[in-house]
């Protein structure tokens, strides 16, 4: 399970840092991006094992990035965790229709559980 590569796309620095440290603590190799556009560039060149994607972001938001990612030959099968502020956020609902396999709820989840979920996805 060690040395899996995770890309954290999150505009809030504090949250990005918490995720980075928690994942590093769990022996992940972490990559970071502060918006969807940057995230897409990194994802397509670095091909991480898992992408953690925030929805509300400047420049290119999470859903736009997700759509573009799915247009790519590698990206169409990339594993993505969508981070959202609210469980029934309409954008999440539409994201589910587009079949991302997993999504999380930011405030309701403990950060440990976010890591546990990531491990579960990569292990399965």
């Amino acid at each position: 399970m060690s040395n899996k590569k995770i890309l954290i796309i999150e505009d809030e620095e504090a949250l990005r840092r918490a995720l980075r440290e928690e994942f590093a603590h769990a022996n992940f190799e972490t990559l970071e991006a502060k918006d969807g556009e940057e995230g897409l560039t990194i994802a397509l060149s670095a091909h991480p094992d898992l992408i953690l994607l925030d929805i509300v972001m400047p420049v290119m938001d999470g859903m736009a990035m997700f759509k573009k990612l799915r247009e790519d030959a590698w990206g169409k099968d990339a594993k993505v965790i969508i981070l959202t502020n609210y469980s029934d956020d309409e954008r999440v609902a539409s994201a589910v229709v587009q079949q991302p396999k997993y999504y999380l709820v930011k405030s309701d989840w403990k950060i440990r559980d976010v890591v546990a979920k990531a491990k579960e996805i990569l292990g399965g």
Partner: protein
Amino acid sequence: MEKIPQKVFKATVSSAELVAQGVKKITCKISEPFSFSVGQYVWVEIPNIEGETKIPKGSRRAFSVCNMPNKENTISVIGRISESAFKQKFFAFSEGDEVTIHGPFGSTFIIGQNSPKDLIMIAGGVAIAPFLPIIETIKTQSLPIKCFLFYLNRNQESTPFLKELEALKENNKFFDYKVKYDVFSWDDIKYTCDGLEGERKWWVAGPQAMVGYVYGELEKGGISMFDMAFENYYPIHPHNLTLEKIKEQLQGEGILAQAIQNSASHTIITDANGVVLFANKAAEEITGYTVEEMLGNTPRLWGGMMSDEFYKNFWARKRMTAQIFIEGVINRRKNGEAYYANARITTIFDEEDEIIGFVGTEEDVTNAKEIDQAKTELIFLASHQLRTPLSAINWYTEMLLEEEAGKLNDKQKEYVDEVYKGSQRMVNLVDTLLDVSRFELGTFVLDLKPVDIVSFAKSMVKELKVQIDEKKLKCEERYSKEMPLFNADQKSLRIIFQNLLSNAITYTPSKGEVVLDVRMAKQGDIIGGKNVGEASVAVIVSDTGYGIPKAQQDKIFTKLFRADNVRGKNIEGTGLGLYMVQATVEQAGGSIWFESEENKGTTFYVLLPLIYTKKKEATKAP
């Protein structure tokens, strides 16, 4: 059914008799062969009424034929002698007077080979007319129909055909009846459903307001509209308000007339049937219709101001202690634009306590609504924005508590733990605020999926186990054995269970008892003293807690309300929980009520219909 030609016939009155106080039966012999079906009606026309100035004018009226088709070509009609010039004159007719009969005309009530097994008729006063020949037909043709008549009247003296009905009941097994002299309700008839199987039809005839009210009661009892049929008429009371009376009083130059004309509130006056006789300038401005367009119409022209209560009070003929107040009705201006209004309806009575008309006022509250909406949107956005910093607080305190950034001493751990708990509470509050604003903005989307309600309920109790144990409460769970999967929105169920259970836990002193009872409720079952209208899942949460003070029980579902007896107890609460529960239950088409006694406990009852019917569409407000 055989097609019967409609024609004009000359006829002569062959008998006229008083069949009850103020009720006359007139039989006319038609000069040529006349055929009709039972339950049909005719127009009776009488020669020119001279000097007629009263409203409504006209020399003919519709009457249901109350006898059987016969070889003598006679028809009988009954009616109440009223001040209307037509009825005054017609019911004074005696043998030999000439009338013209038009018809016969179609009938709502058709009896024949394909009739239902059970027939329940509900008649208001003289509207019993169409039912008499129907009952007679069932008897003479020995049709396989059981027949029950609910006969609604003001008092015994003015009720026609009581002796005849009694005789019919005594001599025939297929027929039974009940006379009622006060307000009729679903409770009066529900027992007729017990033991009856097979197809059943409900036929209702009477004054328009009574029919409207009975319809509501039957609907409450879970009767499908497709099993009901109606025939209504528009009664004219002796002192009914007329255009002339209104004109006399309001169209002059008097101070009162000017005050009402120029009031900023939309004001209308209607007769007892809700027909508009007067409308002021504000009514024109708000609805966009001119006075001329409104006169002669009912307020339905611009919306539905006539509520169930309107019909109920009308039918009950009871003097209301207060006006009917309807908040936030959505009406429509002539140009199609919707507007919000608060409406008030006051009944006008004559000296004999007869309803003679209504005064309706409306205030256009669209602006206030819009401001309210903007406020809700602000709360929604603010709550949403709060979540990111809350996540940061939660995650970092969590990391501190996990001692990832180094060891904490006991005191530090305790402090950080408090920060964490506080932040968790804030997350819950923000979630509730988001739910509330979603509801108020109409953006709470239901995601209906089959739910195993028992597993769901068990998981909810499990989530609250810590609090239950902390207070050493006895928690009993009762589940019906065979609960069907039912379509529900899990988010809504969560709001209902979470709030009711956590309230029961919170407001019960330690060592008390909380009971969760989840069971099937069939139509006709009695749950918490109420009759179950349609098959539902019943969720009953009771506790032995502080209870809700009697004086405040009517406010318990109000937003931000908290009862006095718990304010001093240092118990956390937002006053949003029950408000949300009620909104959620109603959105699911269900109902909620409670019983409570101070210091004894409270029981909440929730019924969630097994088959979800969209009763309150969650739409985006304009």
